[in-house]
C-alpha cells in the first residue's frame, strides 16, 4: 500500500509541476526586446559622469577647480581650464574622462563645489579602445562662445545692478547722514562732508578692469 501511495503521491507532485509551468507559460513574457524598446532604468542607475546643463546659464558650470580630478581614486579625469578673456567666471576648456577606468564611486560628484557633475543614464555605450576617453564638454563646445558672450552680459548686468544697489545704499546713507546732520545742525552743530555719494557709485566699475586682465595668464 505504501508503494502505491508513493506512486500516487509522486504522480500528484508531477502534475503540480506541470500546472505551475503551464500557468507560467500563460503569463506575459518579461523579455525586454532591447534594441526595439528603451529599457526602463532604475532610479539608482549609475553610468559615466556627465556635466549638468543648468537652465539659467544654458551650459555646465565647471570652474576647473580640479577638485574632482584630484579626488578621483582611478585617476580617470583630465581637466584643463581657468580664466577666460572677458568674463569673471572660470571655465573648463578640457574635460575628459576615461570610462574604462571609472569605478562609478561618485566621489567626483560629491566633491564638486558647483554641483555640476551627475551620473548620466547611458546604458548602451561601447568603447572601441583600451582607454575609453569620453569628452564631456563635447555637447557644450559649440555653444561656448555664445555662452561667454551671454555670461559677460550677465556679469555686466550684475555689476551694474550691484553698483546701482551700492549707489542707492550710499544715497540712502547720505540722506540719512544729511538728515542726521540737519538734526545735529538744528541741535547746533555744523554740516559734515555731503559730497560722498557720487564717488562711491563709480568705485566697483573701475576695480573690475585689472582683475579680468590677469585671467588669461593661467
Amino acid at each position, binding site marked *: 500500500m505504501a508503494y502505491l501511495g508513493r506512486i500516487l503521491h509522486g504522480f500528484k507532485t508531477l502534475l503540480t509541476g*506541470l500546472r505551475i*509551468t503551464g500557468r507560467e*507559460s*500563460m503569463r*506575459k*513574457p*518579461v523579455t525586454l*526586446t532591447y534594441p526595439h524598446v528603451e529599457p526602463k532604468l532604475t532610479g539608482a542607475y549609475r553610468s559615466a559622469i556627465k556635466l549638468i546643463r543648468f537652465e539659467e546659464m544654458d551650459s555646465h558650470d565647471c570652474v576647473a577647480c580640479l577638485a574632482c580630478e584630484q579626488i578621483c581614486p582611478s585617476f580617470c579625469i583630465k581637466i584643463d581650464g581657468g580664466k577666460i578673456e572677458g568674463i569673471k567666471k572660470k571655465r573648463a576648456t578640457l574635460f575628459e574622462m576615461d570610462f574604462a577606468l571609472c569605478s562609478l564611486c561618485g566621489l567626483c560628484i560629491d566633491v564638486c563645489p558647483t554641483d555640476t557633475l551627475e551620473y548620466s543614464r547611458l546604458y548602451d555605450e561601447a568603447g572601441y579602445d583600451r582607454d575609453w576617453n569620453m569628452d564631456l564638454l563635447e555637447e557644450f563646445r559649440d555653444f561656448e562662445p555664445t555662452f561667454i558672450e551671454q555670461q559677460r552680459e550677465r556679469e555686466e548686468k550684475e555689476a551694474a545692478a550691484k553698483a546701482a544697489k551700492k549707489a542707492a545704499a550710499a544715497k540712502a546713507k547720505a540722506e540719512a547722514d544729511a538728515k542726521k546732520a540737519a538734526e545735529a545742525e538744528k541741535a547746533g552743530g555744523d554740516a559734515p562732508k555731503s559730497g560722498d555719494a557720487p564717488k562711491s557709485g563709480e568705485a566697483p566699475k573701475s576695480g573690475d578692469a585689472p582683475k579680468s586682465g590677469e585671467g588669461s595668464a593661467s
Partner: protein
Amino acid sequence: MPKTLAEMLGSPMLAVATGLGGVMGLLSFNALFCIYLERKISAWIQRRMGPMEVGFHGMLQTVADMVKLLGKQLITPKGIDKPLYHLAPLVVFAPVVAGTSLMAFSGSFALHHIDLGLVLVFTFGGFAVLGIFMAGWGSNNKYALLGAMRSVAQNISYEIPLLLSALSVVMLTTSMGRTVTVGDETVAVQGLNLFHITMVQMDRNVWFIVLQPVAAILFFIAVLAETNRAPFDIPEAESELVAGFHTEYSGMRFALFFFGEYSNMLIGCMVATTLFFGGWSGPLLPGPVWFFLKSYALMAVMMWVRWTYPRLRFDQLMRFCWMVMIPLSIVNLLVTAFFLKVF
C-alpha cells in the same frame, strides 16, 4: 479499407519514390517545426519570447540554423571506428523514415497497410538504440561511450513497459469486436494493425485512453524515455557528458541525429494518437488533419514535460522503470485481461 499508395498509382516503384519523398518532406518539416515549437514553448514557460527576429515571430529561425549546420565543417576525430562512426547517423535516421511510412494517417489512404504495423513500428524504433550505440562506440570518446551505454540500458528497460502498455490496447482491440464495418465491407479485426485499432475506436465511439488511462500514461512516459527526452535525457546529459553519444559529431551528421530524435518523437506521438486518442477520427475536419492535430498536441505536452522536470539520475531512472513502470504495466495488463475474460 485504406488504399495503399501502390494501388493508387498502379506501380510499386512509383509508389516507393513518391512515398519516400512525402515522408522525407513530412519529417523535414516536422524537425524544423518542432525545433521552433520547442523554443517557443520553453520560452513561454520561462516567460521569455523565444526567437523573434528571423521572419515573422522568428518562424525562419530554424531554417537559418539548418543553413548554418549545412555550411559547417565535418570534423572527423582520430582513432574512430570508421564504418561504425559513419554509419551511425544513417542507422538512426533510416528506420525513422520506414516507421513513419507505416502510420495510419487516414481511413482512406495509406503508404503501407500491413497487419503487423504496430510490431514493425516498434521494431524500427528499436533500431535507434543500435544507431546511438554505434555512434558512441565508434567515436573513440569516453563521454560518447558513456552516453551510448546509458542510452542502451535506458531504451531496453523502457521498451518493456512501452510494449506491455501497447499490448493491453491490442487486447482491447481484438476483444471489443471481432469485426468492424467500414462502408459496406466487413473486416476481421487484427489487433496489431494500426488502422484497425483506430477503426475499432471509431466504431465503438470511445477513445482507448478512457478505457486504459493507466496504460496511456505509462505509454507516454515510456515514449519520453525511448526518445531520450528530458527528464530522461541522461544519454545526452550535457552537464555531465558534454553531449553524450553525439559529442564527436558536427555539422550535418549532428543534424541527422537531431532529425532522428524529433522524428522519433513524432512517431511516438503518432502511435500514441493511434492507440489512445482515436487516430484520425474527429468531426468536420478531414482525417489527416485530426491525426496531425492530435499528434502535435501530444508533442507539445512532451515539450511541456521537458521544460518542467529536472533530469533524473541514472539509478533513479532505472529504479523508476523496474520498480514502478514495469510492475504497473504488468498489473494493468492482467487487470485488462481479467475484465475482458469476465465481461
